[in-house]
């Protein structure tokens, strides 16, 4: 998908839609309205990424930003509607907020475009790391530059990102609903109520139709990331989406137990193992070179996808599982 360098009506209208939807989301009256508008914003943002020429980010925004975050917010906003005693926002507050935000945004935009238009090197030098990245990508064993950058050239960033996910998953495990304590805190609801209502047949049919398709899509995204837009993050988020779908529809029941905790730890441990492997085999820490680089990258991506899926699903289970 090649971007055009000058802006046409498509990009302009998308950008306008982004700003308008964001303003509507931020200043909405009800929680659920804000959440649904946030989903719409995510769709617009994902299309915008695609039109700009960043298809990996578009895929990630669609699956992670709209799918998983939408499920998280949607579930919470549905079970926690805004309580009646909150102060209603006044028109003056809304206008002041919009004006102040637009002012800050305009100032920031002005400085950014001034700074971005003046490249630091000589006038003939291309700005950015595209040249160096494109030259180094063939040595990484994968063809797609984003995957090469993520898992090889900037693999330290990805390792730290997995640590951030692990921290989020740790919070999820700490707040995980205990199947035995749930009945004692809120007035004696029997433990069998934890199962939730049985799924209506249309939902069961829908899940049995869609879940295998999304699983296949996740596996395809994982392996397509070597040559096309895709990769471990989008695949992991699709996995998490399947788990969330199965959990919320009532078709299955997932728990944060020892099996899931193993999956959560696997990502960071595998990454550290790859790093140490580089050290042991004579290179530097986390340096991945040579004829096995592609295979190791894909194997690492598989493990990362499973961990990302488990982490996001664990976060959802922890936020959705508390008794009312």
């Amino acid at each position: 998908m090649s971007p055009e360098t000058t802006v046409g009506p498509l990009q302009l209208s998308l950008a306008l839609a982004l700003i308008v939807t964001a303003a509507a989301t931020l200043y909405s009256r009800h929680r659920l309205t804000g959440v649904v508008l946030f989903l719409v914003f995510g769709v617009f943002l994902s299309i915008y990424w695609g039109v700009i020429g960043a298809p990996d980010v578009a895929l990630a925004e669609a699956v992670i930003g709209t799918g998983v975050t939408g499920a998280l917010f949607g579930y919470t906003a549905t079970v926690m509607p805004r309580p009646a005693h909150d102060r209603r926002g006044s028109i003056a507050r809304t206008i002041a907020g919009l004006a102040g935000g637009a002012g800050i945004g305009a100032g920031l935009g002005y400085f950014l475009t001034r700074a971005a238009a003046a490249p630091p090197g000589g006038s003939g030098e291309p700005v950015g790391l595209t040249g160096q990245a494109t030259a180094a990508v063939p040595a990484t064993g994968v063809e797609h530059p984003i995957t090469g950058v993520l898992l090889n050239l900037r693999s330290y960033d990805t390792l730290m990102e997995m640590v951030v996910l692990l921290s989020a998953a740790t919070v999820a495990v700490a707040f995980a609903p205990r199947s035995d304590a749930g009945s004692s805190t809120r007035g004696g609801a029997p433990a069998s109520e934890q199962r939730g209502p049985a799924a209506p047949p249309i939902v069961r049919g829908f899940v049995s139709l869609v879940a295998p398709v999304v699983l296949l899509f996740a596996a395809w995204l994982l392996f397509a990331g070597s040559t096309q837009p895709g990769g471990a993050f989008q695949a992991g988020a699709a996995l998490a989406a399947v788990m969330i779908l199965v959990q919320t529809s009532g078709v299955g029941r997932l728990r944060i137990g020892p099996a899931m905790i193993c999956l959560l730890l696997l990502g960071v441990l595998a990454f550290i193992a790859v790093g140490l492997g580089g050290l042991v085999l004579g290179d530097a820490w986390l340096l991945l070179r040579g004829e096995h680089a592609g295979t190791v990258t894909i194997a690492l991506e598989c493990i990362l996808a499973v961990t990302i899926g488990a982490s996001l699903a664990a976060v959802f289970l922890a936020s959705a599982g508390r008794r009312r």
Partner: protein
Amino acid sequence: MIELSVASLTLWTGALLTGLALVRLLTVEDLIARLIALNLTGGGTLLILVGLAARTEPVDPVPQALALTGIVITVAFTGVGLILVRAVDDDERPSRSADGRAHGHDEEANA
């Protein structure tokens, strides 16, 4: 049409979005709205990042990879925020235990 490059449009959109969402983040009281504003601030920042990447012709892969990382981190902290918001709400809500008293008054006054 206006002579505007894609990179500049993305930078302006990202800046406006960040400004709007940041102001809302700092002023709103409702916790869920605050989380949504935080998420939108993150989205605006990523737009700025990719806007800087769009300055070169095959869009620069390094800031794109960082934006991808940013999206995953955004969902991670949004999830943690939601877990905490649920826990805070559970504690604030008066418990319907046998003695019938509302336990949530102190927390509600501080919200």
